[in-house]
């Protein structure tokens, strides 16, 4: 148990002394995951609304499939993106492998199902009458969608928070397609896993705590915006 305590002390130490490498890694974690979350949200909120409002055959199945993708292990996504971006892969020419951009791509792929599924679920918890009322007052499809998303803002924010949490805490993709290169693609989770494999439990705990702190900051910000 001392390790946990020491981890805490170490975390405070790292934060107080503004350890340059830790700051750099933390900042990189934050940027990559925020960008991934924003991109995925821009994609999934309208898409979720589309799925929710359109009636079509196989909708239930589609939702089940999306929910199934909650279970894709990050390593598998990492592998897929790796194959895609590797020199011999179809997008090898972009030279994205082992760059932060590749990590963003991987995280976007990872959180799309989560955001999509939770957005649909958030929307379907809004009383149908709200959408009817909007349409009866002349709202177009997209206008209705925006209104209903606004009505579901609590749940939609929760979905975004969940997606962000998933993105910033995952490690499989970050290692596979980022490569955990010091000073370039190393982020908090890959650093933690490196320290763990080195047997440095305290530093791992400290980095974990820092990760939680920035997640808290992001959540509080999002919750403030939501209101």
């Amino acid at each position: 148990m001392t390790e946990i305590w020491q981890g805490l002390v170490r975390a405070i130490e790292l934060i107080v002394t503004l350890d340059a490498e830790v700051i750099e890694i933390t900042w990189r974690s934050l940027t990559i995951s925020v960008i991934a979350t924003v991109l995925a949200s821009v994609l999934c909120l309208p898409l979720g609304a589309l799925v929710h409002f359109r009636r079509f055959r196989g909708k239930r199945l589609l939702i089940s499939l999306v929910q199934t993708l909650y279970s894709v292990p990050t390593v598998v996504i990492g592998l897929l993106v790796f194959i895609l971006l590797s020199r011999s892969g179809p997008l090898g020419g972009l030279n994205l492998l082992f760059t932060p951009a590749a990590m963003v791509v991987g995280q976007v792929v990872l959180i799309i199902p989560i955001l999509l599924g939770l957005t649909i679920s958030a929307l379907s918890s809004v009383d149908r009458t709200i959408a009817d009322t909007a349409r009866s007052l002349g709202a177009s499809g997209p206008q209705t969608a925006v209104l209903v998303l606004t009505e579901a803002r609590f749940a939609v924010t929760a979905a975004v928070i969940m997606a962000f949490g998933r993105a910033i805490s995952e490690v499989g993709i970050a290692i596979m397609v980022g490569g955990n290169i010091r000073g370039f693609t190393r982020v908090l989770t890959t650093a933690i896993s490196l320290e763990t494999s080195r047997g440095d439990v305290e530093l791992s705990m400290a980095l974990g705590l820092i990760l939680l702190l920035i997640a808290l900051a992001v959540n509080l910000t999002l919750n403030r915006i939501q209101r």
Partner: protein
Amino acid sequence: GAETPVLEPKARLKLATTTSLYDTGLWGHLETLFEKKYGVELDILYAGTGKALELGRRGDVDVLAVHDLPSEERFIADGYGVKRVPFAYNYFIIVGPSADPAGIKGLSPEAAFIKVKETSGAFVSRGDDSGTHAKEKAIWKAAGLDYEMVRQSGQWYIEAGSGMGPTLMMASEKRAYTLTDIGTFLAYKGKLDLVPLVDKGETLLNVYAAIAVNPEKVKGVNYDMANNLIGFLTSTGIQKLIGDYGVKEYGTPLFSAYSDEVEQ
């Protein structure tokens, strides 16, 4: 038909082994033989040398199979290990793009490292304090360079902070050089754009040793069975098996039996 998660600690022996050894599949082979012979359940955990030693210190495993001499010696000196028993060895190799832009083919390991650094040919390091990483540091030292200085000396030196496999993949993608154990390299060969360039030299020697965790220092470990395992590994039959392992799959043996070799 899953296992019941009920534990009978007496009937289990926990071994922490280094990843490079595990990934070759050698342990899969030995496990059944050992289990049959001693009627014990052998739980094999693979981890980097650093982590494996940490598991030993905590008493979460009974015996270790690792390959980093300095840390092994420290482990024993601290009283956690009883004795270091080498049971196999092979050589690390330096691999790089077949074009060999730095021109290191056939050089000694130290000379090759210096050449790579001077021509700023990219080099990918494990950077994870594994046995392989320790060996890399040892080579830099033997070449008369300060590792910290090398590490900070520019873009050409890439610290992957990953396992051997990902490090090889990265080296291949980045057309870079790297130091690797032979087993992992052979396993990945088909996916890599890399060829072995340096495979000879004293410093490349890679010795695998088994250490039983000291029951005096760490309570509750299965010392007797750990000794059985060490005895098993160094028995003639198994030593022969180790020396032949890999021929079937890779066309070349991956290890040499330690009994064949003189003391280091």
